[in-house]
């Protein structure tokens, strides 16, 4: 599980709808990567004025092959850092740190699992689906986005699952609405016992609550903004309830990005709840 820092080289960069998929030759990252883990990329080159690493969940890895180990990530252009990534060309160099973070927990016995992805949040779910199926689990997918061009991996999901439900908020593909509109009926039909999800915080909160209401456990990969990705900067924290019932501000890069959905205090993300360990008002401090 130990991450490595390598000078990656761009193998390919392709457009997928509104997204970009970047494949880097990054020896050592693929060897230990597990579904749900991420890589942290330095952007802008060695003299960049952008110091903070950009974290992306791992879409695919290839351990061997003509080019050595490769890692592929999916991103949307949001700011200057991702704009720089979108202009990379073959053979350009990118400093890669990974694989980082805690992966999705895999069930010990075969289960019925539903994988829910919002936007390009579905990227880490396909390698997860492969592993679940290899262990004899049933896999269903719910893929959603605001509009068709922002769906990621709908075809791939169809290939890998028993059932797939697609939603778009504008109805341009699949059912009009959100993933949570179709999730309950799919869970009932499939007898889902585990929900895996990755996407925006609001979606994760809703999916986690639905899972609990249906007696299923959930594993949610969060997207918190990070500065370092390796656990030293303390910026990517969110309130999470521990085994001892105590809420702590934990790092999503090291304790996450995958959390048990019922442990995250979703409604309190962005705050420090008063009963948090060490909170200024009340608490244990």
């Amino acid at each position, binding site marked *: 599980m130990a991450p490595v*820092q390598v000078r990656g080289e761009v193998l390919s960069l392709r457009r997928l709808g509104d997204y970009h998929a970047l494949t880097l030759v990054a020896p050592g990252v693929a060897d*230990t990567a597990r579904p749900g883990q991420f890589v942290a990329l330095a952007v802008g080159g060695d003299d960049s004025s952008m110091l903070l690493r950009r974290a992306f969940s791992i879409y695919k890895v290839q351990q061997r092959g003509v080019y050595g180990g490769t890692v592929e990530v999916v991103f949307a252009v949001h700011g200057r850092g991702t704009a720089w990534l979108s202009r990379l060309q073959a053979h350009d160099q990118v400093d890669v740190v990974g694989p980082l973070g805690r992966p999705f927990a895999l069930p010990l016995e075969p289960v019925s699992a539903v994988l829910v992805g919002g936007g390009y949040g579905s990227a880490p779910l396909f390698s997860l689906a492969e592993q679940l199926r290899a262990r004899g689990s049933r896999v269903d997918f719910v893929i959603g986005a605001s509009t068709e061009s922002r769906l990621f991996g709908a075809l791939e999901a169809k290939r890998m699952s028993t059932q797939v439900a697609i939603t778009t908020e504008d109805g341009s593909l699949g059912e009009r609405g959100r993933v949570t509109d179709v999730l309950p009926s799919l869970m009932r039909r499939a007898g889902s016992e585990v929900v895996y999800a990755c996407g925006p915080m609001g979606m994760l909160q809703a999916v986690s609550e639905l899972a609990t209401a249906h007696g299923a456990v959930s594993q949610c990969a969060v997207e918190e903004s990070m500065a370092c990705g390796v656990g*030293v*900067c303390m*910026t990517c924290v969110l309130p999470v309830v521990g085994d001892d019932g105590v809420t702590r501000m934990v790092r999503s890069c090291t304790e996450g990005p995958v959390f048990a959905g019922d442990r995250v205090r979703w409604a309190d993300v962005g705050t420090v709840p008063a009963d948090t360990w060490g909170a200024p008002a009340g608490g*244990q401090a």
Partner: protein
Amino acid sequence: MTRMRITTRTAGEAELPAVDMSTDLAGAALPSPVLTASGCAAAGRELDQFMDVAALGAVVTKSIMLKPRSGRPTPRMAETPSGMLNSIGLQGPGIDAFLEHDLAWLRNRGARAIVSIAGGTVEEFTKLAQRLRNVDGVTAVEVNISCPNVEDRGQVFACAAAPASAVVAAVRRATAPGIPVLAKLSPDVTDIVEIAQSVVAAGADGLSMINTLLGMAIDTDTMRPALAGVTGGLSGPAIRPVAVRCVWQVHQALPDVPILGMGGIRTGLDALEFVLAGASAVSVGTAVFNDPSAPARIARELQRALGDRGFQRFSDAVGYAHRTEPEA
């Protein structure tokens, strides 16, 4: 399975020139002049995956307080040109857990630890220093006086000579003789030399400089402050000229006082600027977020830069830019 530790920045992997890189920081003998910076390396463990932390001059640990502390709400960070703002709020486990887990790990790992302490009152600083007094593995104590003084309307200790000196004197008294006490100075003062002189008079064995500058960014989409804490500390290469100036001024006024220099160091040449200005050692902070093996890389680059300039000993370069003799 074998674990590879792949070094990436191998350009210049050629033999390094023979330069004695050992240094003396206020009585602490360090094998390397390059250290981590408080708040940018946790307690070393995470970074040990990417470089050998025992080979660094020391790991300067994240400021620790008496009690566990949750820190501030998010967002805690905003990227700025060649820098960043942070408003973490000193999140940490408290001194007991720090001693049991973090310091113990550093000791077992064979790494030198400079323990940064933070408090809201002189009494808290005193208690922290007392807790460190009979503990093995403390190479030096760094006093983070850039904390709000709860007994003075939250005014930061570091911003006036009297409260800064009061904290330093108390920590010096409570710390074992022979363990250096470094006072970490804020650049947000009118005359940093005045503060430096007063904390040295109060017993500081050395000075760490500089802490972050107070800054602010506004998110133009939400049209609100970018940080939940509104203001934050600015760090990174953007502040390097301010830091070099501070080191220069203090070294000029107090040439015998050892300085641990920091503020935006990203390369060996950046580190060399601080050394030439008068720093006996340097800390690498924000650059670690960009490159988690930066301190090890910077140590190599600094050694090469010194060798290229004809230095056989690191210590000969300390304050070299202040020389007055004419060029040969």
